[in-house]
């Protein structure tokens, strides 16, 4: 496998590794995979998952490029004054330009781990070349059942005495200034920015779905206060039109960083199955609606 690592971008500040398909053909590949950072994890991915993905995809005839966004991994910050997430969107599009020139394909899929998923959906809203996204542990919104399960989880963890103490503290907190709590109603931030309101996010995904972008939402089993049961996805989005047009998987065996060998294998198998059943068939269909600026 002849991988090539090079620098690219208008300031030559991005470091990216291109992996061609294992078997060379005269025709362009059906799609190119984009693999990038998760938080501050370098382009090799959580526990080198992007390297494993690149090899697995290459065996399926899919080239890929794994890259560090500005200020992450080996890539330098730019002189740009763009907000960081906007810069990462621009970085991703620069990488797509380079990959298109190299592989001769203008269709892309992106495996977005956590903050990478946030960047991925913003790229897709701007750039119609991004045709499929795997969202790993992206935004979650609490449902009644989620809150109940979170409460039971905390009760089990803290025991009855601890839970009563916390309840007491919480009651006292009602008399404090709301800003003193500093919490986010929707739960944790996705490492880079706060979770957008549900209606905003739903509108974005609906736009992508209407344009024929394939989406796979995956949540790990290691976030009991964030996403804690299989039914939560339907609970969050069941009343919206897009939900029947996207794929969802609850990878309960895995933690957020896909640490165990079993989790890594399950993630690779799941991604390959999605590629074969949803992504590749969709490459035969032209985009439904124009996207981008």
């Amino acid at each position, binding site marked *: *496998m002849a*991988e090539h*690592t*090079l*620098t690219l971008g208008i300031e*030559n*500040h991005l*470091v990216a*590794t291109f992996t061609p398909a294992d078997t060379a053909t005269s025709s362009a590949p059906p799609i190119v995979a984009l693999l990038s950072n998760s*938080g*501050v*994890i*370098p*382009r*090799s991915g*959580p*526990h*080198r998952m992007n*390297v494993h993905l690149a090899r697995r995809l290459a065996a399926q005839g899919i080239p890929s490029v*794994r890259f560090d966004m500005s200020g*992450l*991994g*080996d890539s*330098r910050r730019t002189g740009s004054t763009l907000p960081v997430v906007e810069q990462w969107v621009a970085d991703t599009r620069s990488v797509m330009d380079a990959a298109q020139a190299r592989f001769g394909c203008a269709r892309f899929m992106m495996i977005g781990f956590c*903050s990478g998923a946030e960047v991925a959906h913003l790229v897709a809203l701007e750039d119609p070349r991004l045709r499929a996204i795997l969202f790993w542990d992206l935004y979650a919104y609490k449902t009644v059942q989620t809150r109940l399960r979170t409460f039971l*989880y905390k009760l089990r*963890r803290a025991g009855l005495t601890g839970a009563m103490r916390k309840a007491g503290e919480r009651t006292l907190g009602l008399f404090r200034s709301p800003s003193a709590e500093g919490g986010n109603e929707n739960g944790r931030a996705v*490492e*880079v920015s706060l979770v957008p309101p549900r209606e905003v996010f739903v509108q974005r995904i609906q736009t992508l779905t209407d344009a024929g972008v394939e989406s796979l939402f995956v949540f790990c*089993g*290691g976030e*009991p*206060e964030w996403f804690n049961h299989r039914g939560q996805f339907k609970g969050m989005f069941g009343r919206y039109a897009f939900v029947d047009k996207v794929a969802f998987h609850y990878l*309960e*065996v895995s*933690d*957020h*960083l*896909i*640490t*165990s*060998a*079993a*989790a*890594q294998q399950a993630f690779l198998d799941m991604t390959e199955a999605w590629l074969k059943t949803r992504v590749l068939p969709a490459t035969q269909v032209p985009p439904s609606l124009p996207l981008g600026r």
Partner: protein
Amino acid sequence: MDLAIRRFGRPSREMVGVYQSATTGDAPRARFLLCRPLGQEAVRTAAIYRVVGERLARERCESLRFDYHGTGDSPGSEEDQSLSGWLEDTLAAHEQLQTDADVPVIWFGMGLGATLALRAALRARKPPTQLVLWEPVLDGPTYVRQLMEGHQRELVRMFRVPWERLLDSGKAVNPSLPGDILGFHVGQQLADELQNLRDVQIAPALRRGVRVLCAVPNEQRGQFADLTGHPEFHMHNIGQITDWMSSQAMGTAIVPPDLLRAVLSTLD
């Protein structure tokens, strides 16, 4: 501040490195080889290596940071690796920097990367002028035990349930070597070499004329008592200990300020 990619090593042991030039075009003051630790520690310290490279560039120094074969972004499979292979990789990376006899070459390593650098310095045809060893692994069995404990601690923290419940649920298995630990596969040869890694010797490097700066927590200083007073050996006491095996605060990039000072002190 230019970046250039270096692909080097034997065809069967290729590696990828990032070469960072100085910000000015003048002759460099020094060239630095930046040796990463392994596994989760390499992930956690990635930002340090970029920041050190950028800081050195502003000091008119060049640097090469690289992934050993079978790690990070380099080709190769994790399960086929060994300390002896990575030692050869370190020497191959060193050759990338030996283009000008007048420019001193300095090595910086963290964790197991520091230990590998120390060993490689004894083998290099022309050794580095200085070594900066940050928290070197001093005892293999202790390191293996820390990896095992770190593996359990990490999964318990990530899943937020006790280890026994993780085992019962099938979400975890007890770590063992060879095997998967902290998300990376350790093969038989590496497992054996780690278990036999003992007696990290700095004196032979000093005898080769290499100046050594060793940064360790206070409780490890005693292991270097016999070197106290040696004019080319310097100790640095690490005040703030960071668990580089943990992904805790994974959304933040930690660069200890005293680490940067220690690296830059080699230019004095």
